[in-house]
């Protein structure tokens, strides 16, 4: 980052001039370097305190038997080996992947539809854009409690509404069945996050030059053809961003399951982060929890890198 600054300062030095000027320029160069260091220092400090140090500490912890209280012992890769044979963790990973695979396309589709709906530059479109975006600014935990109440049997307003329409019985306990619980979580997440996807996709739409679409229209392309062959390819960078966001978010899902389903029924909705939470704070085994966290981080990094690579390569095809 500092290299160009140095070069420019250096070329300035080569002007034929007195030694004094030379020295002064050297001082300027040093001062600039110092300023640069000082300017990045706060960011470095934050990064070190809140990311690098905790990360290093997590790595160290993951190689120990580290109970919250009691004796610690170094066990090398023992925690990692245990994780690969831990049925509870493996099924949590499995469930998280299924959840991600279901939720990502649904979110993308809903986001695209919403973005299409509010694309026009009218006042009404701005109002609806705001309406669709509103749930995004609600905290996930608050939204989860809201849905928990809405869908309660007998007392929940949504349950009552659906019962009034004859869709289900008012005593139906959707949380009491794995599919029902999953559907409620899915509805919550779509309602809560589709607005953000819409906004990102909308900015992608608006960055596509109007002329390209007009030219395609002149060439006789239908609306659908223009969407598939013009809009989507040009939207690729935005799609990459949206997909990475939603996949990362889904792989780290915790709050909505902790509050809405409490992992139930019969532990069928325990996600990877939920299992890490249980290992660390219920079984009080911090070392094992740290190892699971690092494994999840690795998976997350691989998935995100893979996604970015895929979407970048197809750009050149």
């Amino acid at each position, binding site marked *: 980052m500092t290299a160009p600054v140095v070069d420019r300062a250096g070329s300035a030095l080569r002007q034929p001039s007195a030694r004094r000027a030379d020295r002064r320029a050297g001082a300027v160069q040093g001062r600039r370097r110092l300023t640069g260091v000082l300017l990045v220092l706060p960011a470095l400090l934050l990064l070190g305190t809140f990311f690098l140090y905790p990360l290093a500490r997590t790595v160290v912890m993951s190689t120990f038997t580290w109970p919250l209280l009691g004796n610690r012992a170094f066990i090398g890769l023992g925690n990692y080996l245990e994780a690969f044979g831990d049925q509870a963790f493996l099924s949590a990973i499995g469930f998280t992947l299924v959840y991600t695979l279901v939720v990502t396309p649904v979110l993308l589709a809903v986001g695209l539809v919403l973005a299409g709906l509010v694309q026009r530059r009218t006042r009404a479109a701005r109002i609806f854009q705001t309406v669709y975006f509103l749930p995004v600014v609600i905290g996930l935990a608050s939204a989860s409690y809201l849905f928990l109440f809405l869908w309660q049997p007998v007392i929940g307003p949504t349950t009552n509404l659906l019962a009034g329409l004859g869709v289900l019985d008012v*005593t139906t306990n959707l949380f*009491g069945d794995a599919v029902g619980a999953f559907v409620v979580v899915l509805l919550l997440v779509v309602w809560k996050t589709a607005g953000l996807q819409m906004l990102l996709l909308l900015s992608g739409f608006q960055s596509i030059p109007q002329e390209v679409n007009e030219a395609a229209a002149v060439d006789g392309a239908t609306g659908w053809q223009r969407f598939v062959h013009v809009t989507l390819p040009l939207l690729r960078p935005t799609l990459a961003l949206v997909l990475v966001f939603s996949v990362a978010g889904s792989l780290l899902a915790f709050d909505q399951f902790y509050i809405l389903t*409490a992992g139930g*029924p019969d532990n069928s909705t325990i996600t990877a982060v939920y299992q890490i939470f*249980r290992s660390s704070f*219920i079984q009080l085994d911090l070392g094992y929890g740290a190892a699971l966290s690092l494994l999840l981080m690795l998976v997350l990094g691989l998935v995100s890198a893979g996604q970015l690579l895929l979407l970048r390569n197809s750009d050149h095809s």
Partner: protein
Amino acid sequence: MTRTALKALALATVAATGLVLSGCSSGAGSADDDTVTLWIRDYQRELVTPLAEAFNATHETQVEITLVPTTTFVQKLATAVAGGNPPDMASLDLVFTPYFSQAGALLDVTDRVEALPYADDLSPAHVAQATFDERVYGVPFTGDASVLFYNKGLFAEAGLDPDDPPATYDELLEAAKAVRALGGSNYGFAFSGACGGCNIFSFTPLIWASDGSVLSEDGRTAQLDSQPVTDALQLYRDLWEADTMPSLVRTDAGPNAATAFQEGVVGMRGDGTAFLGALEAGGQVDFGVAPLPGRDGGTASFAGGDDLSIMSGSDDPDGAWEFLEWATDVEAQTILADQSVLPIRLDLHDSIYVPADPRRQVFADALEVGRVPYSPVENELFNDNNGVWATMISRAVFDGDVEAAQRDAQRDAQATLDAVVHDEEGDR
């Protein structure tokens, strides 16, 4: 070395020592101002605040309460201990006392407890939970006991004798069916099907009363696949199959099943003293209480509540003990009993607790014989809503495969217990 240099060195040493000392004392509140700190769970605020006020008004030592969220109490306390910065005292749900005492986090108060004139009248279950290797690490603080609540109005409507509550599994099942037969939104029985802690409290007594158990006496062997456990699970399965329970019980982690009983639409439910207080205050339901029954008769109860312990790092154990001693005596226990907390002094029940409501006699009797499974991994085994205990009950009652549920639970519970034993031996 010159004299000035020596003087400077001496000064530096003094300063450094001062720093170290002040660093130590900052741990558990400052020692010089006679203040001792006490951690309680947030929902105990209204219970313990009047207690602290009464104590502070009459003592030079002052108690300062810190509220900690209930769901994270154990983690937060353990973190404080691990960080070398614990409070002077903590009020621990008695099931967690073995974990903290075995980790060396609690102060040994054996001699002080034994010197109490009423040492033999303390709730035996509370003392047992506070005991490790024959040393005592706390005093009983608040009492609770699980019993069977039943709705007398619904019993009468259903043609059952409101003064003759069920005393066996069969009678309980028949009573539940009779109440359900009233139709509408009336249900026979309700429990919290997704709550480990609720069920160790109100379901285990059904097993104990049938001469069974969930853990061996020494706490090292799981007995989840034993016949008495099968019988009790089968009872709940039958209750569910006979449609005597509302659908919410399957996913209830505590509050909803209780609310349903308070609304007067549930015939029976196992619960404790806090529920008694809520029902007395509400006044809407005409209810009775009875001991939780065994399969063919017999009764049992889970002795719940808190132990009060001094933390190992406390810098004012004498001040803390002052509060512990006072908290177990008449004044404090009366303040608690007035809020319908069961006194942990068996000798005080007749004078300060039972007179307010004859139904309280059932709780007083239950505490005397109350039991608790003793284990440093109680939280992981029984209180975790996703743990082996909660999972076993949910699978057996709602999915119906009692045998497989028990087999898997037994295997997982034993593995957890073996890991503990293994750790302990590794330490030696």
